């Protein structure tokens, strides 16, 4: 058995959410999502369609491709079968709602599956976040909504979001039976209308139930004998490290602040040396 990192465990869990024949849409700033799409394509979902760069470039990926920061748009255009507009992206999401898979990264998510990328706190202490972009529009429409949280912390998993963006399972507006999944560095979680609030689907190997309880800002039931997440296979790890992301761009999503900038600059130099 290979050793693997928390981001690799997450990417494999995310890839498993993608089914053959799905349409995978990529949002903004999400290298982990793209690695997981490419991984799923190379393993169990070869028929999946991928829409990159906020979705307007539909690519044909016939073998594992490398992700990039610096040449992201260029690599997508090299493999493009179609270049549409953002209006058309939405037309696709509306027409193919049941087949769309899109990995969202929330700043906050609550026990009911509501998400928030707008603002935290209020008045003098309010923090303005970049914004939810398309998450509030489409997340309640999808039968399957997948969020991912690289750092499972209390400030992300809150009792109630400070601001309602993407609606969770309580919402009346949603008619379809919905299943929300949340993939984190500690485990995989699920939220559906039947149970009403977040519970554990599986715990990653080496993570204790206490660790999850400590880092979650609300009561989360963890029954005894809960499922352990199936670790990545040797083939999955090899695909991620050697074919899809040999420079380790995915780690950026696990970092913050100066450490991220420093790592980013190092990655950029490496990419520059490989300029096509």
């Amino acid at each position, binding site marked *: 058995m290979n050793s693997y990192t928390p981001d690799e465990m997450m990417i494999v869990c995310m890839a498993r959410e993608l089914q053959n024949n799905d349409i995978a849409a990529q949002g*903004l*700033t999400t*290298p982990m999502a793209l690695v997981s799409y490419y991984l799923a394509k190379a393993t169990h979902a070869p028929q999946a369609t991928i829409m990159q*760069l*906020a979705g*307007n*470039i539909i690519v044909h990926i016939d073998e594992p491709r490398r992700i990039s*920061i*610096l*040449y992201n*748009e*260029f690599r997508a*255009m090299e493999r493009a079968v179609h*270049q*549409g*507009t*953002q*209006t058309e992206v*939405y037309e696709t999401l509306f027409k193919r709602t049941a087949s769309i898979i899109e990995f969202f990264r929330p700043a906050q998510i609550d026990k009911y599956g509501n998400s928030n990328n*707008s603002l935290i706190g209020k008045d003098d202490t*309010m*923090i*303005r*976040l*970049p*914004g*939810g*972009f*398309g*998450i*509030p*529009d*489409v997340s309640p429409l999808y039968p399957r909504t997948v969020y991912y949280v690289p750092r499972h912390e209390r400030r992300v998993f809150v009792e109630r979001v400070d*601001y*309602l*963006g993407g*609606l969770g399972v309580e*919402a*009346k*507006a949603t008619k379809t039976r919905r299943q929300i999944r949340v993939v984190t560095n500690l485990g995989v979680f699920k939220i559906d209308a039947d149970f009403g609030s977040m519970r554990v689907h599986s715990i990653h190997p080496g993570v204790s139930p206490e660790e999850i309880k400590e880092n979650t800002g609300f009561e989360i039931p963890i029954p005894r004998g809960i499922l352990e997440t199936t670790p990545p296979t040797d083939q999955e790890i090899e695909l991620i490290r050697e074919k899809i992301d040999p420079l380790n761009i995915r780690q*950026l999503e696990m970092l913050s602040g100066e450490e*991220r*900038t420093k790592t*980013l*600059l190092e990655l*950029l130099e490496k990419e*520059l040396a490989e*300029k*096509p």
Partner: protein
Amino acid sequence: MSRKLVSSKEASKIIKDGMRVAIGGLTIHRKPMSLIHEVLRSGIKGLRVLTLGGGPDVDLLVAAGAVEVVEAAYVGFEILGFAPNFRKAAETGRIKFTEHTEYSIMAGLQATAFEAEFIPSKLLMGTDILKALGYKIFDSPITGEPIVAYPRIVPDVTLIHAQRADQHGNAQVEGVTAIDLLLAKASKKVILSAERIVTTDEIMKVPSMTNLPSTFVDAVVECRYGAHPTSCYPYYTYDLWHMISYLESARTGKIDEYLRRYITGLDSFDSYLDEVGEESRKKIQMQR
């Protein structure tokens, strides 16, 4: 088809204080930066800026005090994080931020472009974002159920940077196309800058590539590296190094220095490119 090719200075005269100015591109992709610089140098104030996803465009306009309202679904530097000047101004109330989503912007523009008073839709019902937008909810005459009226959005001017255009404004937009074509249709005026001005014969070779025809365009400006430091596929990728140093100057309280050195203290976008330097341009260049 009339000739619309003018200097960026001439084109920017269309923009007046207090106008609702829409900006094409997306975050760090194909932003009309040379036109933004022109706005900053002209000292235009009180703008109401609308864009799908803002990046250095919005952040610079806010930093220079040219903006009163920002309307967007996202403002940030993608992998580089927050837009610092925008964030500070929104948090302190120096600007008003109207948070949209992709849908609320597109619906409003679609209404305008298709001569509708509003677009009725159930999207965003129950969210705080819709509440803050203050859009009316009414009973649908078809189903009797509550539904949101997404009112028209009508920009006074839209700024777009295209890859190629002829002197009439028949333009080809490539890569991340965002909502530029929709903005052009809904906007009263459109100023287009193009990386390359080509002959109409060249445009006629593949007419299906002309996704933004001259009928929607009012002024055309030629500008190499006109999207710098954002990307312009297939010519150059984004200058993340420049944006990192920009963010650093914002963090260390040196944004006024940045503005003087790169924009307001200079006479043209060409001088800005000189200041950025040939070495930096070579780094990001992908195709001549």
